[in-house]
């Protein structure tokens, strides 16, 4: 029996005759034949969609599951990144194949049996660990978000949550605590920073305070129950909960302990932001608290009546304390319901029931984290930092609800 793996083209205009006849080609699909071969084939409407699924035996069990061919959820790639479709997600875990991507010289292919992690510098014993070695240490798992600090775009009404801030995703990360490895190599008390270096063609490097390594850094080899995806650093990456994504160096090959930061290009020329007085802020590690309504949001439309407003909120400094929603363009705010689990440094789902009377308005959310930080407006951020924008921009995002039910981003400038 053949199994449809993926639809490549679906004929949208199906004539009634074709539907009844059942012979006409409805789609071009990637199909696994009974012999296990993968081929491209046209499939008829009856194969694709029987009139009555209770009258036709379905496809047999397979080696890997497939997303329903009725679901089209995709990342949005550019030359340097690919954005997560936040508006299509449910719950708080990002499916691994939809986790955002950002890399500086493409995704390398690394043989896990050859890959090694070297830890050296201000240590008693410089050591080399294979991936298998790393997996022998006591393991830890943690659900946490990962967000690129350059994750704000505006300027158009026709922007979705994916367009505005799709460079954030959440996974359960599994690996060994970096503190366990620090003990193993004997980090010297004089070490105050470490350099993390990737094994990609950018040989990406960031300087990280040693304290973060002792606190909660993970050398991760798994994501959502399976090995890391190549785009997420296969076979091993650094994972720094709550910190700007670039510091969680992927394809990690080396950690050097030192007594000063290295001032690499990624922490000087990039990932620094202009602030007031002509100054440039550096080593801005923490992700400030942020939230966004992911439904209703462009490109979806709404109907008058009850609407469950849904969204995500998170903070790099701890837990989400509360989320407020405004349905009157920010004049008044109501508490949203937070969905368990509310985890430290993790995307947290919120919802708010709203009975829309059909009048034009704007809806928006703002989060407060457990440090008492309240997500600012765009104007507050410009006021605090000056007009240059840049990294770590986390403003309240507003959706315009038009009387015909269209939902549009409210551009900030």
């Amino acid at each position, binding site marked *: 029996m053949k199994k449809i793996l993926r639809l490549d083209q679906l004929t949208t205009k199906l004539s009634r005759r074709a539907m009844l006849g059942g012979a006409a080609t409805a789609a071009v699909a990637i199909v696994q034949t009974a012999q296990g071969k993968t081929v491209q084939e046209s499939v008829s409407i009856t194969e694709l969609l029987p009139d009555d699924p209770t009258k036709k035996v379905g496809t047999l069990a397979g080696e890997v599951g497939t997303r329903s061919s009725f679901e089209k959820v995709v990342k949005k790639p550019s030359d340097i990144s690919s954005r997560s479709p936040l508006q299509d997600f449910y719950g708080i875990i990002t499916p691994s194949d939809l986790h955002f991507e950002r890399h500086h010289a493409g995704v390398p292919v690394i043989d896990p049996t050859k890959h090694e992690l*070297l830890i050296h510098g201000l240590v008693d014993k*410089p*050591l080399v660990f294979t991936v298998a070695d790393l997996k022998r240490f006591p393991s830890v798992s943690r659900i946490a978000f990962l967000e690129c600090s350059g994750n704000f775009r505006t300027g158009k009404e026709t922007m979705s949550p994916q367009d505005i801030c799709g460079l954030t995703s959440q996974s359960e990360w599994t690996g060994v605590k970096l503190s366990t490895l620090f003990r193993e190599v004997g980090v010297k008390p004089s070490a105050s920073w470490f350099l993390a270096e990737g094994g990609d063609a950018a040989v990406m490097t960031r300087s990280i305070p040693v304290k973060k390594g002792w606190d909660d850094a993970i050398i991760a080899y798994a994501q959502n129950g399976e090995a890391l995806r190549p785009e997420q650093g296969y076979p091993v990456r650094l994972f720094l909960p709550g910190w700007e994504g670039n510091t969680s160096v992927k394809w990690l090959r080396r950690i050097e302990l030192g007594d*000063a930061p290295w*001032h*690499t290009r990624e922490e*000087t020329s990039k990932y620094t932001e202009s602030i007031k007085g002509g100054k440039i*802020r550096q080593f801005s590690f923490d992700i400030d608290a942020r939230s966004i309504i992911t439904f209703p949001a462009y490109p979806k439309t709404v109907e008058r009546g009850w609407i469950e407003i849904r969204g995500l909120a998170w903070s790099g400094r701890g837990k989400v304390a509360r989320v407020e929603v405004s349905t009157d363009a920010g004049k008044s705010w109501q508490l949203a319901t937070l969905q368990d689990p509310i985890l430290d440094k993790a995307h947290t789902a919120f919802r708010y029931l709203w009975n829309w009377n059909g009048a034009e308005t704007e809806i928006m959310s703002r989060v407060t984290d457990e440090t008492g930080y309240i997500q600012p407006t765009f104007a507050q951020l410009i006021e605090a930092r000056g007009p240059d924008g840049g990294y770590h921009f986390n403003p309240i995002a507003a959706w315009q609800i038009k009387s015909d039910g269209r939902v549009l981003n409210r551009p900030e400038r």
Partner: protein
Amino acid sequence: MTFWVNFLPDSPDEARKDDGLYTQKPVVVGDTLPAAFGFGRTATQAEIARLDIDVRPDGKGLPAGEGKPAIGKVIFAQKCAACHGVGGVGGPNGSLVTTNDPAKKRPDKTIGNYWPYATTVFDYIRRAMPFSEPGSLTNEEVYNLTAYLLHANGIIDEKAVINAQTLPKVTMPAQTLFVPDDRKGGPEIK
């Protein structure tokens, strides 16, 4: 480290048969992490040297060799200008040299007006450029290119020689602009 030994009954029936197993306080096993697990192998000096390519602002990590702007200029035209523009200005992958183009609202962020340390120029070019052939340059070529880009940005003299001693001494125009992050959470927007 604390281990919680937690036996949960499989069914309410089983729970009723409790012989103390289920109502017992969790057992705390104390710190059982060994001083070392003994996993991994000792790194040799040779393998550390092969991978340890980073360069710090104080010059630690700079290799032997030297470079001059005039030689770097020739290499740049051959290996870099296609992506970064003739003379390091314009180009599809961004300017590396500061210009005061009055047509631009804000000048491009470049080595001359945004990079705090000259050593980063050497470190970055050696590890990542040219983009199409990363890791292909010799240390000598990287020194020459670094010298050229510093000169093109008006930071060093045309006759300057760049090596492990002179590069850390170059003062970059943007160095005093950099301040460490002072956001701390709490109500203040920064």
